[in-house]
């Protein structure tokens, strides 16, 4: 199967290619509440205007669970819901790959602050919300999916790692796969150790190449160069966001998805290697 996916365009040694389709897109960032709102700013057709979003009320979560869910979970599920709706897929049949560098930064801060104050009575809800896979756990409960759900982290390479893992899963399972990346700022004082700009969640539904309806087709190629330059954004405000939020490192891919013609973006992997992604809108 894999041999058939190799493209003749890539003849360099170790030129690995994984091809997949994009069936759905979800965006949740300050001033860009969904994919429709985000297209122009991400493609460079309009300036990005930062604005506070209304608190996302993810329809995926029932009211009781929404109250308990962390801010990370809420924005992750908001982007996930958009991408699934765009793809027109029943979430119960879609494996999901969640990626985040920070996980639940507010909860980690709360727990460290409590423990430092000698208060060892962490609430059960706070504890289960502290796990990195809280968002993916709430997700599987919210959509009643028994399919595989994973949660991964690669610091500033998280976006590339999550995209690669989701694409690999579409190939191995021959099924659409939901990919969700999300990162929120840490509260002070961790904010000084790990500055993070704004709260972003980005989601895609990827599928094997022949699945319809596709919004675009991607090919992922392992970049030969280490420490390669990754693709930036034309909009200076968005470029700062890209560099300041691990999830936003994926914004150039979404910018490419907003363009009418084909393009290529380079994402940095966790170890500094390049992940080249060609994007061909349908």
């Amino acid at each position, binding site marked *: 199967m894999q041999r058939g996916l190799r493209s003749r365009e890539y003849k360099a040694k170790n030129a690995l290619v994984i091809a997949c389709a994009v069936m759905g897109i979800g965006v949740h960032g300050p001033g860009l509440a969904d994919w429709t709102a985000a297209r122009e700013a991400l493609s460079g057709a309009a300036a990005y205007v930062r604005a506070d979003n209304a608190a996302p009320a993810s329809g995926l979560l029932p009211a009781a669970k929404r109250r308990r869910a962390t801010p990370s979970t809420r924005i992750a599920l908001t982007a996930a819901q958009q991408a699934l709706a765009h793809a027109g897929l029943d979430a119960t049949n879609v494996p999901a790959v969640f990626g985040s560098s920070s996980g639940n930064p507010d909860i980690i801060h709360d727990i460290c602050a409590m423990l430092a104050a000698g208060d060892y*009575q*962490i609430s059960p809800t706070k504890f*289960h919300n502290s796990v990195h896979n809280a968002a993916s756990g709430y997700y599987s*409960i919210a959509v009643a999916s*028994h399919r595989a759900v994973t949660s991964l982290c690669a610091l500033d390479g998280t976006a590339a*790692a999550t995209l690669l893992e989701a694409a*690999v899963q579409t190939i191995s399972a021959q099924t659409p796969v939901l990919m969700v990346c999300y990162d929120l700022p840490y509260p002070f004082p961790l904010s000084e150790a790990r500055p993070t700009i704004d709260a972003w969640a980005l989601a895609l539904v990827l599928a094997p190449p022949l699945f319809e309806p596709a919004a675009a087709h991607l090919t992922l190629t392992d970049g030969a160069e280490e420490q390669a330059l990754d693709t930036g954004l034309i909009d200076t405000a968005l470029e700062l966001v890209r560099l300041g939020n691990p999830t936003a490192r994926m914004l150039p891919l979404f910018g490419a998805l907003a363009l009418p013609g084909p393009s290529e973006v380079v994402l940095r*992997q966790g*170890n500094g290697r390049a992940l080249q992604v060609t994007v061909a809108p349908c």
Partner: protein
Amino acid sequence: MTFKPVAVSAQTATTAVGRGQGALLDALQTRRGGLKRYRARRDFASDIDGPTLDTWIGEVEGLQSVTLPRQWSRYDCRNNRLAWVGLHQDDFFAKARAAVARYGAARVAVIIGTSTSGIAQAEGAYRARDPEGRLPESFSYSTTLNNFSAPGLVSHAIGATGPTFAISTACSSSAKVFAAAARLMQADWIDAAIVGGVDSLCLTTLCGFSALELLSPHPCRPFDRARSGISIGEGAGFALLEARAQAPAYLLGAGESSDAHHMSTPHPEGLGARLAMCGALESASLAPDAVGYINLHGTATRSNDPAEGRAVAGVFGSTPSSSTKGWFGHLLGAAGIVESIVALLALEHRMLPGTLNTTDLDSDCPNNVLLDNETRDIDVALSNSFGFGGSNCSVVFGRENTRPRTLS
């Protein structure tokens, strides 16, 4: 997904019973457990009195005197000291570097499971905040607290530059690393992977499980009628996987599922557990009766063991099974890899471990739980790991002679 078997070329585990798989095998064979009564001011939070907890822990001794090489000193924290110690047992470090030399750095992935990474370092940094509330300058976020710290350290030290990331799905984390590595091999993205798991003792998990009233006041007694919860342990385990190699044992399959039930309580009938086990068998093209031993998740909580027991009995009938958490505790993000290594030891040494500390089996758990060790020749072993968020993973391993059968 149907698996092409993946060679497990090297493996190592470090837990409270000792450093390296020799110590683990010896502890299993001699029924020597490593759990100790918790006392405050242990190594992992020695600057404070800490909480009073009536429980037992599986602590890896001597980590306070471990020094990372100078070029990796920014990674220094309990979790990475444990990772470093674990990586250097059983000649694993040299074998991993040899794989990098053999395949090329970019063709070797590093995938490490962890639940809390170096959070103990952040706990300490919060205690050491200055009057303005700032963390000490010495606190290094990316190389300690972030989940990528252990995979970053391991990949840099070994020199691998293939896909490098942490899987953090609580207590299933380092079982899922096998599935992720096998997928990358199937896609021909890599030839080999260093997979593993590392989790270390910290106040966050001790206090968190205490809040859930899941800490046992006794060394944990999985599947016992009188079981009273978990004993938290720490550990590091690693395996070298190769897509095309001869090895004593092979990864034959993996199954992942979600309970979709509750964030911190398993599905009462073990629905997700059953799906994970059946998925592992299906990916390995194996019938349930091919499996000769099951290393259970077996946490010894009131809710896990009956749910898992029903799922196991439903899929496998009376196949021998045991939980080895009585030896080293619940290793959380390192449980999957270390218990996979127990399953591999069972295959290679024809020794099925029993269930330490357990004497009176709970009739609510209908699976065949071994109390005593048994000498038995088996071809295939399965290991279960289930975590918060209803995240389940089962992995299945076989000896070389099972390979042609699964391929046919």
